[in-house]
């Protein structure tokens, strides 16, 4: 009883303090403790509601999809595994992505990381060369006339069609896979960069001309910032294509990546593992896209002409 009383007193004291503090700031109305709690509760409720409106629809749809899937595949002799069967057979892959039980028995997290490393090399190279080539094509009429038709033809070649050639050239699986990523991702980066640079307003070019900026200064101080929104669109498409290509390339080149894991699982009829791996690939691809979008948002802050 005394404890309860002292608690209320403490609360009152706190309310008093907050009141006096509030008074110190002119124009801020003092809020009694009870009201303050009510606003907090209302705020929490509002936040919860917002989370619910964002998360609830996908959760409901996902649950329905899983249910339908379960119903469709639970009969005897179904060709594909049901969700419950997947959980029973592959729960270790789902629950612990980073186990390591020897050379070919490792968690999917490790495999994804190996694939991501290849993507990082291939996509990184594609970003650097793509922006440079795009800048040349965008800046020079002659380069555009010469290179654009070649680019337009080459970009339609499917990623895997490059693989035999690159295997012949590099004589090793890993650089070949990286090359396939590179050649897949570079086209949208080149094309978008070139469009971005061709769209640099004449005003900015005039400013650069009056300032007598040299080629390098023009590249860093005008071209890149001005074309940044276009460049990042290219990078975003490029990273998506890289992730599409790596899985296919790894299926053929072998090794440790997530692509090879799927091929290996198919060869030993572990369909549940394949479905888990697909989920991983989807989630990682989604995250890659979001990362580039986030970087783009940071980098292009303030570049919108007013």
């Amino acid at each position, binding site marked *: 009883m005394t404890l309860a009383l002292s608690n209320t007193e403490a609360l009152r004291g706190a309310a008093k303090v907050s009141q006096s503090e509030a008074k110190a700031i002119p124009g801020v109305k003092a809020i009694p403790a009870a009201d303050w709690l009510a606003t907090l509760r209302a705020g929490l409720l509002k936040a919860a509601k917002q989370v619910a409106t964002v998360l609830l629809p996908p959760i409901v749809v996902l649950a329905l999809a899983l249910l339908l899937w379960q119903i469709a595949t639970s009969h005897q002799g179904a060709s594909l595994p049901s969700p419950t069967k997947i959980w029973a057979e592959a729960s270790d892959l789902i629950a612990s992505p980073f186990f390591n039980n020897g050379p070919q028995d490792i968690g999917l997290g490790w495999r994804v990381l190996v694939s991501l490393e290849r993507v990082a090399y291939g996509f990184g190279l594609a970003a650097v060369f793509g922006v440079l080539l795009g800048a040349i094509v965008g800046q020079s009429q002659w380069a555009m006339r010469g290179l654009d038709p070649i680019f337009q033809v080459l970009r339609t070649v499917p990623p895997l069609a490059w693989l035999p050639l690159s295997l012949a050239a590099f004589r090793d699986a890993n650089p070949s896979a990286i090359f396939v990523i590179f050649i897949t991702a570079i086209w949208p980066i080149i094309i978008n960069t070139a469009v971005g640079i061709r769209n640099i*307003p004449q*005003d*900015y070019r*005039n*400013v650069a*001309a*009056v*300032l*007598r*900026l040299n080629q390098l*200064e023009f590249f860093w*101080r*005008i071209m890149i*910032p*001005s074309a*940044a929104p276009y460049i990042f669109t290219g990078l975003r498409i490029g990273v998506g294509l890289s992730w599409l290509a790596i899985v296919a390339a790894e299926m053929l080149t072998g090794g440790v990546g997530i692509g090879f894991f799927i091929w290996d699982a198919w060869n030993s009829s572990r369909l549940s593992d394949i479905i888990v791996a697909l989920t991983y690939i989807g989630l990682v691809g989604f995250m890659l896209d979001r990362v580039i979008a986030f970087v783009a948002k940071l980098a292009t802050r*303030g*570049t*919108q*002409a*007013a």
Partner: protein
Amino acid sequence: MHLDRPFLKLEQVDKSFDRGGVTSVVLKGIDLSVDKGEFISIIGHSGCGKSTMMNLIAGLTRVTSGVVLLENKEVNAPGPDRAVVFQNHSLLPWLTVYENVRIGVDKVFSRTKSRSQRHDWTLHKLDLVQMSHAKDKRPSEISGGMKQRVGIARALAMEPKVLLMDEPFGALDALTRAHLQDSIMAIHAQLRNTAIMITHDVDEAVLLSDRIVMMTNGPEAHIGEILTVPLARPRRRLELVADPQYIRCRKAVLKFLYERRRFVEAAA
């Protein structure tokens, strides 16, 4: 500084553009001499080649024939000695107000001023246009008039021999425009810089200029008349409204523009 020849000189300048095999002559036989420290306005109807003339002086386009001379040297490329205040401010949106001015300062004074001197110089020019309070803002965060102020600061910071202004206040409302005109007059009084301004506003031309260059209508536009504005400086816009000289100059410019217009309409 008195040279045998004037400070800036355009001699028999022609400019034509080729578009799809059709040659159109925009400017024909332009002769103009500008003294050091003079404030010149170029006025004319739209499409008369005012901006082309400015681009020729700036070096952004090349003359077809004739020559533009600045201190007896031929102008054939753009450069910071002929800094331009562009019509639509042309600030780089990814740089702050300070950085937009500093980029020019760094370029022009890379050898002659130390880093801290360049910093002070930049701030001083922003002070001159009363924009130092917004130095860390981006162009998208300030008003149109403020942007144009920064554009003027950027141009002044390059310490140009000639300050070129291409309808600098065209996109601004009347009050902001008047405010900026006063600023320009104050800066001109302080720095005594040579300035050429393109405008289509008669009052603005009379208020600011030592001489007003009136262009005939294109194609083949040329200088129709040059009017000397004999008003003493400093000029105050409220006092000028009733000044007989001011009224006379204003009338002369209006008459030129109006009669040429009518002439063209009659010919069409």
